[in-house]
């Protein structure tokens, strides 16, 4: 069923990592990304592997699920490795026709590819262990200080959570419109990619019209329920830092600082 699709890549579980405050996970991810750029020898990957491995084990997410997350960046990974392999100047160790592999190139290719893999897996760990609504709430809370610079933090967070709520509804509606048009002879399945894309235009037009209508009605319903922006708003489930969150934060800071000392 189209309404059963999962949004984001959340992997439901009851692990410690899942229960961590979303803000801690967000800060942790940023810290981890920074740490990955603090070293330039292969030695740095050892502590990074240890850190990432601990998180993966604690989160109880199967390795196969994590490996699947690498698929979308596989192409980028190969490209990055190949470019580094062939285009880095240095001592030639292998030569054939126009290809010229240097020792430096080999090293760079391996290093870059490893770093990208660590980046992708590490940041997906956040989306695997945090529901989209927790993530929005966490980001709203973290970026709140930006409100001083007139950044509409609350509004953006509200937009994100409304978008998440309406994705399944709009998908269902798309399905309905497509079926209605198929019933009248529309063909979405044959022809080349351009033909198929063109067949989708008559689906998108009514979908947009309906999305605007829904947006209008939703705005009215929100206003009718006293919505007046983020000012003076409280939360049913306010984010609260617990003991484990402070421990997590301390560990993150420790990790990033330690990574700074890696040769």
């Amino acid at each position, binding site marked *: 069923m189209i309404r059963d699709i999962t949004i984001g890549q959340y992997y439901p579980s009851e692990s410690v990592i899942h229960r961590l405050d979303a803000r801690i996970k967000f800060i942790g991810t940023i810290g981890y990304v920074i740490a990955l750029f603090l070293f330039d020898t292969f030695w740095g990957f050892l502590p990074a592997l240890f850190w990432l491995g601990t998180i993966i084990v604690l989160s109880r997410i199967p390795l196969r699920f994590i490996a699947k997350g690498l698929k979308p960046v596989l192409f980028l990974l190969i490209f990055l490795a190949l470019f580094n392999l062939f285009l880095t100047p240095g001592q030639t160790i292998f030569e054939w026709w126009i290809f010229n592999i240097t020792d430096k190139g080999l090293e760079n290719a391996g290093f870059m590819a490893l770093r990208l893999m660590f980046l992708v897996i590490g940041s997906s760990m956040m989306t695997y262990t945090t529901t989209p*609504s927790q993530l929005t709430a966490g980001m709203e809370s973290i970026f709140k200080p930006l409100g001083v610079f007139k950044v509409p933090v609350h509004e953006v967070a509200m937009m994100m959570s*409304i978008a998440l*709520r309406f994705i399944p509804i709009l998908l269902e509606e798309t399905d309905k419109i497509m079926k209605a048009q198929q019933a009248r002879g529309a063909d979405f399945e044959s022809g080349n990619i351009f033909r198929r894309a063109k067949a989708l235009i008559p689906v998108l037009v009514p979908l947009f019209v309906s999305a605007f209508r829904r947006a209008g009605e*939703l705005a009215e*319903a929100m206003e*009718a329920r*006293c919505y007046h922006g983020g000012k003076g708003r*409280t939360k049913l*489930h306010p984010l609260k830092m617990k003991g484990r969150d402070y421990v997590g934060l301390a560990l993150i800071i420790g990790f990033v600082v330690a990574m700074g000392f890696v040769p």
Partner: protein
Amino acid sequence: MVRFENVTFEYIRRDEEGNVDSITTALDDLSLNIKKGEFVAILGSNGSGKSTLARHINALLKPTEGKVLIAGIDTADDDDALEIRQRAGMVFQNPDNQIIAETIEEDVAFGPENMGMPTDEMQQRVDEALKRVGLYKKRHESPNRLSGGQKQKVAIAGILAMKPECIIFDEPTAMLDPAGRRMIVETAHELNKKDGITIILITHNMEETVGADRIIVMDKGKIALQGTPRQVFSKGEALKALGTEVPAMTELAQRIGLEGCILTREEFVEAYKKALR
């Protein structure tokens, strides 16, 4: 509780240069007084001004001329809009387009969150409201999986959590199946009787108005007819001229020549048995 004093409302349509293109008068010098605890049903054909009337009650629209007073507060002042909306909640037609949050519980909390209520009190009110409509067990689930009737109940709970004095239902059953319809109308009556909440029910379905204290029939932005259901539905011809009808039971009773104005099945059965004797 709800007071309209000579209210006129005009929808002004402008062309691209901002010149007035056309003016539609949706409410025309309308005066109305709804008492606290009253159950009022509003009928009328499309474009008769029913929904415009409803949107004036919680300050979503403001009168072009005249005055609307909710519990003595004038809706014209923007500063009082939140106070008015907390007192007079509104349930809309499309169940999907009024649910904001991703879990039922969080959606019910949306109103109280906007009011800036402390978390403990909010949780308590949300739980109470959800128990009231019988959805407490599902509080952590996604509203997407509920039936239309249940979604409308979530919307009702969202208003109950704000402790309103009045609830306006704007065609709440138009997109529901018969079971969902019954559920919502029954809930409305229960809230009226047990909690003393003033109910204003706008509908196209005659059967839903039978239990009301008063029926108001709107036509072209004016009140064309009002009175108890019996008074209103005994004027079958006048109603037809206004583009509405009488409940099926009333019509049937009239056609077979039963005496009096019959509103419900039970009454019909009674009167029919009597006639047979």
